[in-house]
């Protein structure tokens, strides 16, 4: 009988130890992730107000550098825990999300033809012209695919999407972070 009781006690203790170990393992994994370097977006960086930045850069220094936003829109996030913070700038919208307690740039949207990508792609441009400009990027890690008028360029965690209408005119340009949905 004592053996059985001892076994039950050992089982209970092992269960609790397992729970504790799992918690510590999760903490360790989180710490290890924190130590990883920031993702590299390669040629899919962006320049605004002479400040270079890109997807998954820490948002605070970027926003300090590019200046104060005109306004802010907050909505529940589809891709991340918490909210999307969308800051309105002249010609630009910057989406920021908090990931593990740190705010990152997760989206850059060009809203008019006054702003262009570092490659020179802008809203209103002919898509063929834009594709020629993008083709000048010499980097094998950059991939491109097209789906019903949306041209998606991916480099690491960064995704640049260029949308063209039936006439081949670019109607929207957005940088986003690659999510599981993508």
């Amino acid at each position, binding site marked *: 009988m004592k053996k059985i009781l001892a076994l039950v006690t050992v089982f209970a203790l092992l269960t609790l130890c397992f729970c504790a170990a799992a918690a510590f393992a999760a903490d360790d994994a989180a710490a290890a992730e924190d130590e990883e370097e920031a993702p590299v977006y390669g040629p899919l960086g962006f320049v605004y107000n002479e400040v270079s930045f890109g997807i998954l850069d820490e948002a605070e220094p970027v926003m300090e550098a590019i200046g104060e936003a005109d306004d802010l829109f907050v909505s529940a996030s589809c891709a991340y825990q918490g909210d999307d913070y969308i800051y309105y700038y002249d010609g630009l919208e910057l989406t920021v999300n908090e990931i593990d307690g740190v705010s990152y740039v997760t989206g850059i949207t060009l809203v008019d033809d006054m702003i262009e990508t570092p490659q020179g792609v802008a809203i209103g441009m002919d898509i063929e012209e834009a594709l020629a400009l993008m083709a000048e990027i010499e980097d094998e890690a950059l991939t491109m695919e097209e*789906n019903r008028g949306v041209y998606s360029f991916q480099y690491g965690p960064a995704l640049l999407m260029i949308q063209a209408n039936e006439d081949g005119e670019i109607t929207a340009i957005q940088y986003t972070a690659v999510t599981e949905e993508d």
Partner: protein
Amino acid sequence: MTTKQKIKTWLPLCLCLVLLAAAVWFLGRLTQPKYMSGVLEGAMTAEYYEEKTPHDVIFIGDCEVYENFSPVTMWREAGITSYIRGTAQQLIWQSYYLLEDAFRYESPKIVVYNVQAMKYSEPQSEAYNRMALDGMRLSVSKLGAVRASMTEDEDAISYLIPLLRYHSRWQELTQEDWTYLFRRDKVTVAGYLMRADVKPMKRLPSVPILKDPDIGEACWEYLGKIQALCEKHGARLILIKSSSIWPHWYDEWEEQISAYAAEHGLDYINFLPLQDEIGIDFTTDTYDAGLHLNLYGAEKASAYFARLLADAYGLEDHRGDSAIAADWEEKCAQYDALLDAQLRELEEYGYLKSWTLGNDRP
């Protein structure tokens, strides 16, 4: 071994196991989030089981139902009994299983499904899964919902034994965990999560580019299952797109839903083009700049929908039924008290603090 010896051997073992199970259950209850402040949405699923009278209409879907429709208004407008089994980011397979669960308790005449969540065809977030499913009573429906909803890192067993998931919360326990160890305050009235504050819509962000406009196969599969479930139980399914103007509802999605509804003999009502007819004004009728309606917008949408359901679908006016009316008068009183309390808070603080329908209400 004699019977006495067997009892002597096994009784202590059984007692140990019972004690162990009780400890695991108790600690699970203690460490499980209570959702009584801050994020109230996690407390919504369980509230359904406290309903006393049946409903003619059951809403299923995400925040676009539990924020944008008020069952109390539908009662006051046309004597329609309704309940919103909505949860935050409720995915379509969760809607299906929550509806299946509801059919175990009652036989609604109309089921209303809000199609916004069909943008998601894969499990999204454990946090939202937990808010939708932890409150479900143990049943085949719950097991199905868990299986369909789990993200890669989740274990089904932790939905049945919460301690396995929440044990690490022991460091974060607050007074709320002890106060609500064995009880919960209500956070909704018939599934409606009230917000009486106003944040006008000023400027919406640019519409995100849709990389793939096709609604996923899993969504169509579950929509078919919802329709079949309704048919099996003699309920009529109505698809709606609620009044929220953000996140953006794409024309491509609208075309696919409309085509599906036409092909499968379903009614589909898109409230977006009806805003003027309903009277919704996004400078006064939203609490978060266009994402959700506030109380004033929800009451307008609900009054409109109630009239439509009464006129076009012939739903019965239950205000003459004393038992049902008594239950709804109680709900109306809770609703009015909640509104008064929210208005008082808005006057005092300028914003809504987190609180529930319980005795701790300020």
